[in-house]
């Protein structure tokens, strides 16, 4: 069984993003970038399937700038076998990404595509669903458990008010939720091994996909600013301060 894992390079979850001075977007210059955390969960799941002997190959795909190679390498260091980078410098939109992934799926013939349920930069939560629709495959979104069977895969989904388990016919698209697993830290030996794994370099034109944006951003603004905090030296100072504010 082959697993395809698309991963996105996004602003690191620890970074406090700032709006650009001209309100056209968020500041990305000199900001730390990392793999989208939900995609890490997706990679981890695929690697676990491989370690369990269920999957035979894990292919890590990214659509993004040249530096997204680093993101793919992270996936390879976690245990992915090889990578594909579709180089594209501008902002990506779910539909165009889904179209590219469809074309890649047609070439690679995976049994399972595991994506993150959303990317933490735009929080769209659309790519997996669109991809399933374009491919005409079954989809299991917001997965907290994935159990492949014989030609099928059981997916436990996190839904409002509880869990739902569905059985999908493979090939299928699964999107990973937070509780699916806890991704591993790439070990030093695996980081070194990842250096030698192959990453195929492609462009959207190779797949005949038009990347022209369909969305335009009007204006991006900071949320209202919080008041500066104060440090208190001791518990008694804290109690005094709370009393002063009438909170005690």
């Amino acid at each position, binding site marked *: 069984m082959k697993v395809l894992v698309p991963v996105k390079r996004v602003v690191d979850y620890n*970074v*406090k993003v*700032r709006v650009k001075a001209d309100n056209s977007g968020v500041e990305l210059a000199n900001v*730390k970038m*990392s793999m989208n955390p939900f995609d890490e969960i997706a990679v981890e799941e695929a690697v676990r399937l491989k370690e369990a002997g269920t999957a035979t190959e894990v292919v890590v795909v990214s659509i993004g700038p040249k530096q997204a*190679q*680093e993101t793919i*390498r*992270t996936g390879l*260091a976690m245990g992915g076998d090889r990578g594909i980078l579709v180089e594209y410098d501008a902002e990506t939109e779910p539909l165009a990404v889904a179209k590219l992934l469809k074309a890649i799926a047609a070439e690679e013939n995976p049994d399972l595509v595991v994506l993150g349920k959303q990317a933490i930069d735009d929080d769209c939560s659309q790519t997996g669903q669109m991809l399933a629709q374009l491919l005409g495959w079954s989809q299991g979104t917001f997965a907290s458990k994935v159990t492949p069977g014989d030609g099928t895969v059981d997916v436990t989904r996190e839904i409002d008010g509880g869990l739902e388990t569905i059985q999908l016919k493979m090939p299928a698209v699964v999107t990973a939720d937070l509780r699916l697993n806890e991704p591993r*830290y*790439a*070990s*030093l*030996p*695996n*980081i*070194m091994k*990842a*250096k030698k794994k192959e990453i195929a370099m492609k462009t959207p034109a190779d797949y005949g996909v038009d990347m022209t944006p369909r969305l335009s951003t009007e204006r991006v603004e900071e949320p209202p*600013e919080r*008041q*500066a*905090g*104060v*440090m208190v*030296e001791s518990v008694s100072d804290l109690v005094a301060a709370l009393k002063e504010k009438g909170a005690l």
Partner: protein
Amino acid sequence: MDDPRRQSAQPDYDAFAPLLDGPWYTDEHRAFRESVRRFVEAEISPHVDAWDEAGAFPRELYKKAGQMGLLALGYPEELGGVEADPFFALILQQEVARAGSGGVPASLFSSGISMPPVAHFARDAVRRTVVPQVLAGDKIAALAVTEPGGGSDVANLRTTARRDGDDYVINGEKTFISSGMRADYLTVAVRTGGEGAGGISLLLVDGDAPGLARTALKKMGWWCSDTATLYFDDVRVPVERLVGKENQGFHAAMVNFNGERLSLAALCNGFALVCLEEAVNYARQRHTFGRALITRQAIRHKLATMAQRIRATQAYIERTAWAMGEGRQPAADIALLKNQATETLEHCAREAVQIFGGAGYLRGAKVERIYREVRVMAIGGGAEEIMRDLAANQLGF
């Protein structure tokens, strides 16, 4: 600058951000840093206060570090190692420093000073069994050179190992030994020959060898690191456990110090970076006389001077690591670098605690612990005075 609200709206200052910018750094270095950072954030940082109060960290941390390959840096693959240039060691030390605890690396990485001679010079059967267990984190290893009678003057150590048939019989005492309470293997420097440097050998001793007793030592800092005095009373070690050749242990011990000192320098500058980061963030939040502390020139100059010294030290560290990666052993630079790093740390710890005021004197503040742990860095692994002597000799003064 005068509007305190503007200051507080800034993101937290990341003193580590400028690191890893230079011709020697590759994607693998960056990936390694990322991985170690997460490991430290999840497995070490949340626990260091409790571990310090408890006087130990859990033994399973060795296993976790072993699985990450953190104990395997620079050892040959056939022994379970990962061949890696010296920059990986710097990154490891500086990321571990972020937790603000010297005790953790002191014990967790004690194999880093005890295993290199075993990996390079021990009999094949010995190195092939012992080293992989230690690198995997299944066994703990310590280096025992220092004695109650003296640490700097290694050439005059007094613990003896007398040959008796197929065994050496060890008698004497070692002290201040990091991981000394828990070590399963001890690389021990002993006198097998005459006076001076030419009579010293290294022996690999099992932690449970009959005749070996240990007592724990209480310290100013490094509380979660088990430091011990070891008593050897007719401890028998088979001759196969001789590491290298008889009476040629001094040189092996000295070469070993080079790697240790580079790592210590990196660790020191990591702690100095933590001091700077903590101080900037604190000074941005803290208001005195109606304004953020960071708007005061006296404070800004302190911060700038800290950054200046840290950056100079970092450049020296990287330059020296590069030379070592080229296969050189620049002993003078390594000695001077160690002092450069401990002096930078001393300065930064002082200034950070000062900027924190009373809050910097309280248990639980990173800068408080780092301040208490400055001196050991300037004494262990070669004291500052000894480093200056060594450098002066090497430079032909």
